[in-house]
């Protein structure tokens, strides 16, 4: 059954293909995207963990910064070592605000002197304005509005993509390279949002549908919608901007302090120098008051975003930031923000669902074994 998305929603270059494959189209961050295909969310999820899934993530923003000063300039907006980012490598980063909160999370890749950024669709306009204001006119910024983005994820992704471009087989995790695939000038990153090995492929809009069709013709590949994209990233313990992290949450509170490079920390070569540095560096030294943790509900009922978390005495100690059913786990999984004293794995809490306290236990993330390519 296909329901038409809001007319105002933008169509990606794969819109017709989604409809043809029976995608249930919904408005998402201003775009019409499939929440699921006829296979359904659970089977799509399991297929991606078992073989390979193709995702249309063309709604995400792609931005190119060029010129020799780009890395140094971008370092003023993110707590990440970009001068040390080697050609052909990628890093995860956050734009921070003056209070240390996260304005958006993004991937930064270096190709030659250029930096290529992938930002969240819902934050795209705000990010571009933030970049222009923060980088100044001397750093050329180009929004790559004519490129689509496909993600091919799963244990069979490498074998599948290598049929089109053998060079990807040994491409390291978090590496990027320019490749011609099916005649199209693509930028291929070995990373993703599922916890599985896989690639994100930036492809010119005009060539996107042909590439997607060629990948879907491979026996291992099924198209995967937004529903399974969310359950896959949740099981992998990956943050969704706007839920698990937001402008009120610092990278330390969001348990993504690993993304803050050594060079930008106290004692590093370029310590501080990003918005909110004082707060973030203090939290790194002293620990945050609250932090993101994994949560395993003890029963079978899913515990969803917004549910209040209580300690065993019934006092509110945090809230669920993402939650749902984990098809690979075979039960409910969630993440939440809790007072730091209650963040140790094994801590018993309750999540209030429909007025009733349901027992949950703080759990290590990720819920599944991450299977990134390690060479």
């Amino acid at each position, binding site marked *: *059954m296909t329901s038409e998305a809001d007319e105002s929603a933008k169509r990606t270059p794969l819109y017709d293909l989604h409809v043809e494959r029976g995608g249930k189209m919904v408005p998402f961050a201003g775009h019409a995207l499939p*929440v*699921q295909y006829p296979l*359904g*969310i*659970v*089977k799509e999820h399991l297929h991606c963990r078992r073989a390979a899934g193709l995702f249309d993530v063309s709604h995400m923003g792609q931005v190119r910064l060029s010129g020799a000063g780009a890395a140094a300039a971008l370092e003023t907006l993110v707590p990440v070592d970009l001068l040390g980012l080697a050609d052909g490598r990628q890093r995860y980063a956050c734009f921070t605000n003056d209070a240390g909160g996260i304005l958006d999370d993004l991937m930064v890749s270096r190709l030659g002197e250029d930096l290529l950024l992938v930002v969240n669709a819902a934050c795209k306009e705000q990010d571009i304005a933030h970049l222009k204001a923060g980088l100044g006119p001397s750093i050329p910024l180009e929004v790559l509005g004519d490129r689509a983005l496909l993600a091919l994820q799963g244990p069979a992704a490498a074998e599948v993509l290598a049929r089109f471009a053998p060079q990807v087989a040994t491409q390291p995790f978090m590496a990027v390279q320019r490749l011609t695939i099916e005649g199209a000038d693509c930028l291929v990153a070995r990373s993703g949002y599922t916890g599985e090995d896989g690639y994100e492929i930036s492809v010119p809009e005009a060539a996107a549908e042909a590439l997607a069709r060629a990948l879907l013709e491979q026996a291992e590949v099924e198209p995967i919608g937004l*529903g399974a994209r969310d*359950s896959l990233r949740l099981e992998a313990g990956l943050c969704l901007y706007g839920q698990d992290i937001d402008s009120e949450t610092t990278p330390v509170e969001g348990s993504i302090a690993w993304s803050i490079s050594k060079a930008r920390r106290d004692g590093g070569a370029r310590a501080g120098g990003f918005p909110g540095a004082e707060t973030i560096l203090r939290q790194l030294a002293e620990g945050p008051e609250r932090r993101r943790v994994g949560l395993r509900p003890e029963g*079978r*009922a*899913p515990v*969803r975003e917004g549910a209040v978390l209580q300690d065993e005495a019934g006092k509110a100690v945090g809230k669920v930031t993402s939650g*749902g*059913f984990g*098809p690979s786990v075979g039960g*409910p999984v969630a993440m939440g923000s809790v007072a730091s004293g209650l963040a140790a794995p094994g801590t018993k809490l309750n999540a209030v669902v*429909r007025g009733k306290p349901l027992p949950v236990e703080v759990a290590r993330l990720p819920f599944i074994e991450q299977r990134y390519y390690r060479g």
Partner: protein
Amino acid sequence: MSDTRYSEDHEWIRVEGDVATVGITDYAQEQLGDIVFVELPDAGRGLEQGKEAAVIESVKAASEINAPLDGEVTESNGALADEPGLANSDPMGAGWFFKMKIADAGQLDKLMDEAAYKAHVDAQ
């Protein structure tokens, strides 16, 4: 003889004597997607037409199942609680939710027959 009626909320109600068996329709399960959890009412619980009787959670979201009639729960489907996917695979059969003793048979007249329900779905 049993008679199956339908509610606007996409429930089916199969009536045998003064007992109604309640479940969700094929249209409802398709709209909900993969069902991963159900919370069913215990036997003996009084239900009021239009008020929450059960909770159903798909991968995507939680929804309420409202009582289609006034009455008292006589039995809930333990097999469904153990295997919520039955509501997807056999919504009109093994995926039933609960049985209830009908308090006011007159309420049945306001429920739809199969033809009216089909028109209701086509209008969605």
